[in-house]
């Protein structure tokens, strides 16, 4: 049996690892800039499908299906992003006589539409945030909504997701500009510039439920994930279980999620997202009809293998999990390592990874799409790896995360590790006192800067001494000194003007 992974990066690697363990051969597709990428090296077969631009490669259905035919693929796994939630692609895969590793196209189409999915929620009695079910026709309409429901509001591209094409508006004067920006991003990234509006629930937590359903009428929920630490609606840190969900709320969230699964005829693994307000009331946000970036924290805490399960479900096998067997053990935290520089307002930081030291030992898992020497291309999502720590309880997990962040060293590109190192020392993080606006507020304030900039005279003195000694060694080095500087370091190209510990104001 052969499976083609229509994706790249860490998720393509994750899926191929699962396939190897199941005895399934793997087929990689790759763009010109990914010729040396890990997912290509790991595959049993690999096919070039075009230039760097996603539209001409990883979004190019014809090329991908062509490779599948040449390679003799039996299954196609889309990963997340790219074509993962593209119903048309799912249908074409089926028409080619291939097995689509994901939910039925109808379910993708239904849940992919904010308006349709909200209608389903209403029908199944799952609570919703006040908002317009239909897309906005004009700025006037938007202003009318604000008139009725007040501010702040959230503008969402109908086809958006993963924080893309979402804009928060807190001031009436910003309405028009935000509307335009949301539409242009929607058009640019999802080929659909329709936008709708909803009331923004403040101090809410993003809590999502992992579900799995087979083609024989069985479905389970596999606990929840807390994903409240977001930057511009983009998840940055996720954990399982949620520190604020008790057994009762977990059951109620799970049952609401299963109602959506049933109502949508969903079959595969998937995620139903909710907002939970400070009073414990919850509202349906959307359903992600794919394998989620943050699936590992659920795997660690519930002892399941979601990739294996997903492939088995696609093959028509029965769900291997029973609700009563799904018991959480311990606590897991995932940090998304992005090639972005927290010291420069999260400017993208593409380039060559000149040093990569991964943490290891007990309770550490790294799902990575790069290795030392990899060149992070400018053309795709900036996430290069996921650091996942697991420990018997949350305090131990936080301590383990701090330890892992000490061991994790990346040079050549700037990464969000810098952010996590500051975050892990914060009292709010230790106490899990955060909401979806927490990180953005923190970045807007000076607190993180001050925290990161905490005087550490011992470390600073060591850095100064080391710098002087290393400079001396290099000054004395012969041209062929293997340790002499290799040049072409990219953090510089970003224009390093920032000061130590200075965060964007």
């Amino acid at each position, binding site marked *: 049996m052969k499976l083609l992974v229509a994706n790249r990066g860490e998720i393509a690697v994750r899926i191929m690892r699962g396939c190897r363990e199941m005895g399934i051969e793997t087929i990689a597709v790759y763009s010109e800039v990914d010729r040396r990428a890990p997912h290509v090296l790991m595959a049993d077969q690999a096919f070039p499908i075009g230039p760097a631009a996603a539209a001409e490669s990883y979004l190019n259905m014809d090329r991908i299906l062509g490779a599948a035919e040449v390679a003799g693929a039996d299954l196609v796994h889309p990963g997340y992003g790219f074509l993962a939630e593209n119903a048309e692609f799912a249908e074409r895969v089926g028409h080619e006589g291939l097995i689509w590793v994901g939910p039925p196209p109808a379910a993708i189409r239904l849940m992919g539409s904010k308006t349709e999915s909200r209608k389903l929620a209403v029908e199944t009695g799952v609570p919703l945030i006040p908002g317009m079910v239909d897309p906005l026709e004009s700025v006037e309409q938007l202003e009318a909504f604000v008139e009725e429901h007040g501010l702040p509001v959230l503008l969402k591209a109908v086809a958006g997701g993963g924080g*893309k094409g979402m804009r928060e508006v807190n001031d009436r004067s910003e309405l028009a500009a935000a509307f335009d920006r949301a539409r242009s*991003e929607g058009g*640019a*990234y999802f080929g659909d510039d329709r936008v709708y509006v909803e009331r923004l629930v403040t101090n809410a937590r993003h809590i999502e439920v992992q579900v799995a359903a087979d083609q024989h009428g069985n479905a389970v929920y596999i606990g929840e994930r807390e994903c409240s630490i977001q930057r511009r609606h983009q998840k940055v840190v996720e954990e399982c279980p949620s520190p604020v969900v008790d057994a009762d709320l977990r059951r109620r969230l799970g049952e609401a999620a299963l109602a959506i699964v049933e109502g949508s005829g969903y079959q595969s693994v998937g995620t139903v997202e909710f907002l939970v307000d400070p009073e414990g009331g919850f509202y349906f946000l959307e359903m992600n009809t794919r394998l989620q970036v943050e699936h590992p924290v659920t795997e660690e805490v519930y002892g399941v293998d979601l990739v294996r399960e997903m492939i088995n479900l696609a093959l028509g096998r029965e769900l291997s999990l029973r609700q009563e067997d799904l018991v959480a053990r311990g606590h897991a935290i995932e940090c998304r390592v992005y*090639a*972005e520089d927290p*010291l*420069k307002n999260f*400017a*993208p*930081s*593409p380039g060559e990874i*000149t*040093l990569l030291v991964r943490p290891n030992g007990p309770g550490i898992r790294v799902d990575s799409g790069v290795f030392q020497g990899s060149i992070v291309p*400018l*053309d*795709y*999502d*900036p996430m290069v790896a996921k650091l996942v720590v697991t420990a018997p309880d949350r305090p131990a997990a936080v301590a383990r995360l*701090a330890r892992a*962040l*000490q061991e994790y*060293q990346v*040079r050549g590109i700037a990464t969000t590790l*810098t952010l996590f*190192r500051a975050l892990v020392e914060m009292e709010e993080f230790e106490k899990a006192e955060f909401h979806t606006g927490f990180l953005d507020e923190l970045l807007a304030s000076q607190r993180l800067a001050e925290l990161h900039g905490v005087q*550490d005279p011992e*470390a*600073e*003195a*060591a*850095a*100064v*001494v*080391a*710098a*002087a*000694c*290393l*400079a*001396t*060694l*290099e000054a*004395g080095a012969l041209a062929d000194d*293997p*340790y*002499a*500087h*290799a040049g072409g*370091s990219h*953090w*510089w*190209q*970003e*224009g*390093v003007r*920032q*000061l*130590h*510990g200075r965060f964007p104001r």
Partner: protein
Amino acid sequence: MKWVVRNADVAHEVDVENVPGGFEVMMDGEAVRVDVIRLDRAIASLRYVADGRSFSVSYQRGRGREWRLGVGVRDFDFEVLTPVEAVEADAAAASSGPSRLEAPIPGKVVKVHVAEGDEVEAGQPLVVLEAMKMENELTADQAGKVTAVHVEPGQTVDAGQALAELE
């Protein structure tokens, strides 16, 4: 060798002397014996001989005399200059010209908000650059008059490329 190790927060005068089994370092008038072992071109081990304190240091040189050092969970950016270079650098800094907006990263210009002759305030958006699926708004670092705009929407730019001039 004598060095000036500095950034916007700190400036240290450091005198380093090779001695058997390490270095004799005079930092701001205080002497320490250290051992520095380079493991590869990016990681070194620094040890203070007196009390055995040990630090794993990741390091990387940037352009010219720029260095970024990682000690534990902290990153430090320094210029490491000879005393002469330090003086020259100060002189150069003093005679800095008008402000110029450069592309911090390679990317595609999505929007240009200003035209030559516009008056802008500090923080006002000038250009929107798209990279890695995100739109990045580049703003004026000071108030002033736009004397030139070098790019137009749809154009791809390299890192460091001039986008506009202010004065």
